């Protein structure tokens, strides 16, 4: 589905990614974990073509996207749910979800897609006419996921969906993410909360200082991570 080969790049101030290679298969949930500032978000931005500078190769279903712009990548079936949710605060929940289906460019199809999305995210059903900025953090995360899901993407890029959420809300969001993989949809999940991410992921990559340092099956990485945490004496 997604293949990244020796990706380097960053911002005008300097590079943040160095020779990053990873892949996500069809229907797979892959976790990209690592400490703050390791370059996790930059990898997602490179895929969405919003990272100012990037070199290397990124392909979607075999198609090279290095020369594509942001909205063209979306049209190829990629939905990016950014860190901090970034819902459109002064638009209604309904308009937010409808904008997620922007690429459909069809009134009837959009209405149908919005209805489908609210079935998957029932918590939003009663809030459709509310301004998105007035939702709670957890609800905003639901909305951001719904906005990404509504276009029926083949690949979803999820950036720190648990950030700032209560443990209960986090569990709810992660339960939803597991359901999003239906129909062969792939998910690349970026998380600081490694244990949680590896619980629902099939495979994982660990990124540090802009480089992939480890990769493997989730249960292996999870064991290593737990071991490391018990050594360092802190959890979560």
């Amino acid at each position, binding site marked *: 589905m997604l293949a990244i080969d020796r990706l380097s790049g960053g911002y005008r101030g300097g590079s943040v990614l160095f020779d990053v290679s990873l892949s996500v298969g069809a229907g797979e949930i892959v976790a990209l974990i690592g400490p703050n500032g390791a370059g996790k978000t930059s990898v997602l931005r490179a895929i969405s073509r*919003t990272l100012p500078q990037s070199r290397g190769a990124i392909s979607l279903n075999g198609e090279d996207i290095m020369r594509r712009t942001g909205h063209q990548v979306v049209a190829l079936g990629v939905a990016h749910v950014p860190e901090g949710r970034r819902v459109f605060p002064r638009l209604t929940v309904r308009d937010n979800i*409808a904008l997620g289906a922007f690429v459909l460019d069809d009134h009837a199809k959009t209405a149908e897609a919005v209805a489908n999305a609210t079935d998957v995210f029932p918590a939003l059903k009663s809030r459709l006419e509310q301004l998105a900025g007035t939702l709670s953090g957890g609800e905003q995360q639901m909305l951001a996921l719904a906005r990404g899901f509504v276009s029926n993407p083949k690949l979803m890029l999820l950036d720190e969906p648990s950030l700032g959420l209560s443990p209960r809300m986090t569990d709810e969001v992660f339960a939803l993410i597991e359901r999003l993989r239906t129909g062969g949809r792939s998910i690349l999940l970026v998380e600081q909360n490694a244990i949680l991410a590896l619980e629902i992921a099939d495979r994982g990559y660990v990124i540090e200082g802009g480089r992939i340092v480890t990769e493997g099956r989730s249960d292996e990485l999870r064991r290593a991570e737990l071991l490391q945490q018990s050594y360092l004496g802190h959890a979560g």
Partner: protein
Amino acid sequence: MTDLIQQLINGLLIGGLYALVALGISLVFGLTGMVNFAHGEVVMLGGYLTFTLTQSFGMPFLGSLVGSLLAGGLLGFAMDRTTFRYTRGTPMNGLVISLGLIMIFQSLAMTIWGTEPLTMDVLFPGAFQQWGLSLSIQKAITLVVTAVLIAGFGLFLVKSRAGRALRALAQEPEAAVYVGIPVERYIALSMVIGTALAAAAGAMFAALFSITPFVGTSLTAKGFIVVALGGMGSAAGTIAGGLLLGVMEALGAGYISAAFTDAYGLLLFLLVLSFKPAGLFGVSGRVKL
């Protein structure tokens, strides 16, 4: 009392035109963080175009106004594609470019229409008279057209897919990319809409007042003041700000001194800039569309 009401009507008339001018400034600032000093020049050129279409080619006023509106949009598109698009990450450069554009547009207007003020023949003689108030037909038409344009713009912003996309882009630019909004195309669209409204306002200005190649700069200044008054600038706030400035000017000129009217507005603008910069131009610099 009738005098006061008369002044209020005149103020609303001018204020509506100010709002039309300011909407484009506010829209473009909201999407790009750029301040376009050449915006008022589009008003000036729109005015001259309607002058020529009605006076030299005998076209009806409303037809000329639509002509100005279309030409204004086209000019906005040309400006964006040839210059402003190179300044997306650095709005300060966009500002400098807009200063260069002013020089070009003013010289162009001087060459074609000269520097003497031009006044249009009265297109619609007559006036409505009621309760001691008077409203010329030209002014009545201006009020109606302004209201239609503002309402149309509002409906576009709230109801249409493109309008929603523009608001989304202003509120969360990065997320707007992730839902598939083609950012460059929509920034160009905002420029086109803004300059089209400005040129239409220019057509109405030209029919009510005289026009010179130099009116653009002062209209840009009015636009800035309106946008600052309206809170840089919810579209609704910009419209309210325009009406407020128009009424304030009409009352100020009627009851205080006319000489420093412009200076009061600038002073207000300066104070808003310095004491509420975070609220208006903000850290995020986002417009509440």
